[in-house]
């Protein structure tokens, strides 16, 4: 079947009508070659599995790390004497992570820091640490968006700082930032597509492997794109429902 786009007859005089005609005629064959022969669809399935696995665990690390960093920064902001050292550490973390490309972070994690570690573990840690920086800023803004009067009301009732934060501020902050955090995870899912750089067989890599075997870029890569799109659409749909549920107590 050859490669449609690099076929000399199209390079000589590109005929868009012919292109789509051939494409349509050959679609079945392309699909068969890319996914059915030698069970190549299994690349896609296991790739998708890895992508979801990396995203899921990275999200968990991101939430824990992000919450921790946000708490340290907010506490330090309220009382400059507290956590001075930890706050400086957090600032460096945020600056470095948000100031460098995630691919570079991934390569450094795998080749410099965890030289002998499992590729998947390296990817999870790299994306988790990366996501934590963004989640931290989202959560911090959420905590600071809660009206100061709420803290004053809690404290004036005799609740201490900790109880006021846990029972009054956090529930409201979480509600405010839940959609933003969910959005962060949707973008994380797409960002994990660079995991192939350290040889992780994720969804993108799976498509690329099939391309290199079949010399057909078109079918596997568009399929990969479609799979990402489908998952993101499902997640976005879920996000809409979540937002509606969260705003339930605002209804008069």
């Amino acid at each position, binding site marked *: 079947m050859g490669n449609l786009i690099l076929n000399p007859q199209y390079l000589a005089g590109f005929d868009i009508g012919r292109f789509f005609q051939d494409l349509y005629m050959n679609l079945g064959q392309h699909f068969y070659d890319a996914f059915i022969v030698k069970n190549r669809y299994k690349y896609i399935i296991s790739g998708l599995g890895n992508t979801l696995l990396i995203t899921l665990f990275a999200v968990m690390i991101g939430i824990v790390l992000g919450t921790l960093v946000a708490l340290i920064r907010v506490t330090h902001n309220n009382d400059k004497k507290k956590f001075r050292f930890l706050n400086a550490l957090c600032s460096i973390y945020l600056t470095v992570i948000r100031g460098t490309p995630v691919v570079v972070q991934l390569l450094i994690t795998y080749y410099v820091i965890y030289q002998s570690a499992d590729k998947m573990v390296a990817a999870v840690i790299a994306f988790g640490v990366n996501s934590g920086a963004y989640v931290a800023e989202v959560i911090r803004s959420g905590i600071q968006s809660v009206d100061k009067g709420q803290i*004053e009301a*809690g404290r*004036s*009732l*005799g*609740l201490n700082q900790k109880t006021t934060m846990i029972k009054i501020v956090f529930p409201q902050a979480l509600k405010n930032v839940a959609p933003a955090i969910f959005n962060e995870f949707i973008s994380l899912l797409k960002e994990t597509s660079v995991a192939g750089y350290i040889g992780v067989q994720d969804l993108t890599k799976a498509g690329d492997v099939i391309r290199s075997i079949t010399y057909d870029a078109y079918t596997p890569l568009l399929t990969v794109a479609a799979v990402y799109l489908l998952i993101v659409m499902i997640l976005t749909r879920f996000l809409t429902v979540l937002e509606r549920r969260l705003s339930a107590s605002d209804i*008069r």
Partner: protein
Amino acid sequence: MISVKNLEKTFHTSRGDLPVLMGISQTIEKGEKVVIVGPSGSGKSTFLRCLNLLERPTSGEIWFEDEEITNPKCNINLLRQKMGMVFQHFNLFPHLTIMENITLAPTSLKLKTKEEAERSAMQLLERVGLADKAQAYPAQLSGGQKQRIAIVRSLAMEPKVMLFDEPTSALDPEMVGEVLQVMKQLAQEGMTMIVVTHEMGFAREVATRILFMDQGQVLEEAPPQEFFANPKHARLQDFLSKVL
């Protein structure tokens, strides 16, 4: 009950220091209803907020029931349990039902069991005529209802003093009455109250003493009769001519 000695408060802003309270000395006895009036920016609210240390005084002493609360060793949380505060913007907790708003502090501080707290909350709600709103959320209430709930929330801690920071200033005019009614009832029951307000009618009717503040100082203090009929300070005469 409360005595304030030479209280000063200066806010440190990016545009320099802003002195708000410039030496206030006052003694407030048990059962008194002190109303503080004055133009905006005179330091009324700051004075009130210093009493339960929502603002840290720059210098001076505050004593509450023979304890110096401005002393860093004083347990500020214990102190605040005995001083209720009602805010201009209600500050109800929007994520909790009315019942949860009222019972949060007594149960979190383990002063009452959940059942006890809910029982006394219902009694308080009945007193202000809002028992049917126990399971509602703050967003479903009118301003006047929210403020009455805020008063109930403070009362649930069984405080010895109630501080009111312009409790009716954020309300629609027709809702002011219902909140003042609750406050009057509270005054009749003998609660010690310190009220910052612009409601001169309330001051005249309920106060045992009115303080007039301007530019961080108490310029005049008198019982309501004398305060309105015979103001001595020129600044107060000017103020009263504008608000009455």
